[in-house]
């Protein structure tokens, strides 16, 4: 089936004074309507260039990009602008107008974007009043209604990205391109933005393309993924398939790196494991004994314990080890184990649903 986005043999070479940079080489992709399609790769792999080729902000050196069966290279400048209104984009650094408040930012594509131009209509087919009304609805969707009059500098990163998403949705796009949209955000905020994107995909059927260098993002929301390495397409397919049977070296590397990211997904799994369990956190400092405490404790009590997390942190210049253990269900053994650890000079505290 022909997808909403079809990329055929796309290459892009940047000609610079020093050298020609082959940013993309022979990329072919097919993205279906309603997909959440991840494009993952290391920094400099060519992801941003690829996504910019999808709305022709960057013109490919060779190859074609078809959106809904229409080859973008055949469009006039004007038609292309009208097309772009249907392909919204959000960015790592949000790219909001800093001198305009939230509501005016969201009105921008409605008043000044390429909407309405497509059918020979004039720009600004929407009145200012209607645009504001629509903007208010969008603010509702992204949960930012009370910030309508705020300026971007008064918002947190996550809030700015929500405004950017509202702005992107304003012109009823069919496709939403996200270039590292969560890379500047902390794990919790990333999580909430990803959930919002998922909701948008589900509720409005908008096809989403997500550019990222984090495997955890792909695992969290993508249905399909393409792995880009040094300007080439290493592998593409369903996320579940690639996770289970990565074929290429690049895919394997990214998956391993993803596991090591220790970020949200791991944290989530950890939280699940901790549910209904007695968990304790112990902290080793430099003057803790060199005795293998945990191993000895397991031998002594003859009961397995589950290490949920182990980490060394540098606190004020001193290396401190931290461990989160899930203890056996027997309350008596739990108490004995805690006493055992305290005896050996370790700080022990009970945790439930710990937050980093």
């Amino acid at each position: 089936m022909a997808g909403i986005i079809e990329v055929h043999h796309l290459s892009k070479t940047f000609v610079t004074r020093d050298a020609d940079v082959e940013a993309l080489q022979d990329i072919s992709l097919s993205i279906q309507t309603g997909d959440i399609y991840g494009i993952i790769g290391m920094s400099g792999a060519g992801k941003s260039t690829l996504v910019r080729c999808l709305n022709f902000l960057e013109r490919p050196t060779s190859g074609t990009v078809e959106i809904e069966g229409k080859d973008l290279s055949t469009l006039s400048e004007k038609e292309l602008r009208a097309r772009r209104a249907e392909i919204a984009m959000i960015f790592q650094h949000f790219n909001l107008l800093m001198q305009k408040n939230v509501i005016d930012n969201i009105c921008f594509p409605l008043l000044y974007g390429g909407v309405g131009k497509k059918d020979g209509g004039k720009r600004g087919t929407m009145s200012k009043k209607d645009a504001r009304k629509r903007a208010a609805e969008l603010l509702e969707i992204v949960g930012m209604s009370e910030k309508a009059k705020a300026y971007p500098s008064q918002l947190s990163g996550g809030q700015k990205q929500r405004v950017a998403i509202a702005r992107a949705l304003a012109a009823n796009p069919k496709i939403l391109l996200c270039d590292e949209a969560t890379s500047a955000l902390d794990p919790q905020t990333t999580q909430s933005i990803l959930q919002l994107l998922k909701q948008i995909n589900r509720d409005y059927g908008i096809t989403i393309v997500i550019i990222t260098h984090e495997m955890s993002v792909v695992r969290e929301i993508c249905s399909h993924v393409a792995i880009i390495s040094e300007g080439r397409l290493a592998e593409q397919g369903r996320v579940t398939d690639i996770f289970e049977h990565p074929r290429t070296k690049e895919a394997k590397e990214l998956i391993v790196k993803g596991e090591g990211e220790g970020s949200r997904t791991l944290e989530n799994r950890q939280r699940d494991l901790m549910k209904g369990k007695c968990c304790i956190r112990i902290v080793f400092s430099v003057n803790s004994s060199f005795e293998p405490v945990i191993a000895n404790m397991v031998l002594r009590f003859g009961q397995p314990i589950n290490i949920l997390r182990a980490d060394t942190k540098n606190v004020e210049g001193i290396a401190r080890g931290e461990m989160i253990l899930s203890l056996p269900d027997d309350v008596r053994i739990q108490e004995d184990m805690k006493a055992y650890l305290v005896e050996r000079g370790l700080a022990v505290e009970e945790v439930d649903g710990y937050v980093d």
Partner: protein
Amino acid sequence: MWTSEMTLMMWEGTLETLFMTLLSTLFGYLLGVPMGIALAVTDKNGIRPNAAVYKILDVIANIVRSIPFLILLILIMPLTKLIVGRSYGTAATVVPLTVAAAPFIGRMIESSLKEVDHGVIEAAQSMGASTMTIIVRVLLVEARTSILVGVTIALGTILGYSAMAGIVGGGGLGDIAMRYGYYRYESDIMLVAVVLLVILVQIFQTLGMRMSVKLDRRKR
């Protein structure tokens, strides 16, 4: 002895200086803004790169800016005469002042517009905004603080140039300072004229800065 005629003369000088400065700044911006926009937009990293247009404007700006103002004043006298009808006096000074200010203002506008975050421009492009829309709705809006700071600098600079015009009988406070201080050694009159010039610059500076800060929505 300070006489009421002198006070009147100072008052008129101040008005003449203000007239020259404000009018030249206005005309300077009428020419300089389009020039600055063209420079910023046609630059190789601009939104509509055009090497030929950029080069031509670049050369014009550099040539005019490298001619000392006094020489420029004399060089363009025929043009001044053509426009104003005579080549001396307060109104006549506006012409060379405008010619000198325009490329300088164009450069300031160019640099203000180039400060605008490229990401914001890219966002507008991704929404299908046209080049003209981006200039009016993104570049000029986002750069307005920096442009206002530029206006303040321009006013101060043009005021300084207008004082130089005193040498060729251009009128204004500079003219008074020249006539009395330099030719007649009445240094108290010169001093008053200079103090008035300094006060004018201060007023422009304070107003301009206050306005640019007030209009800036970035920090709060």
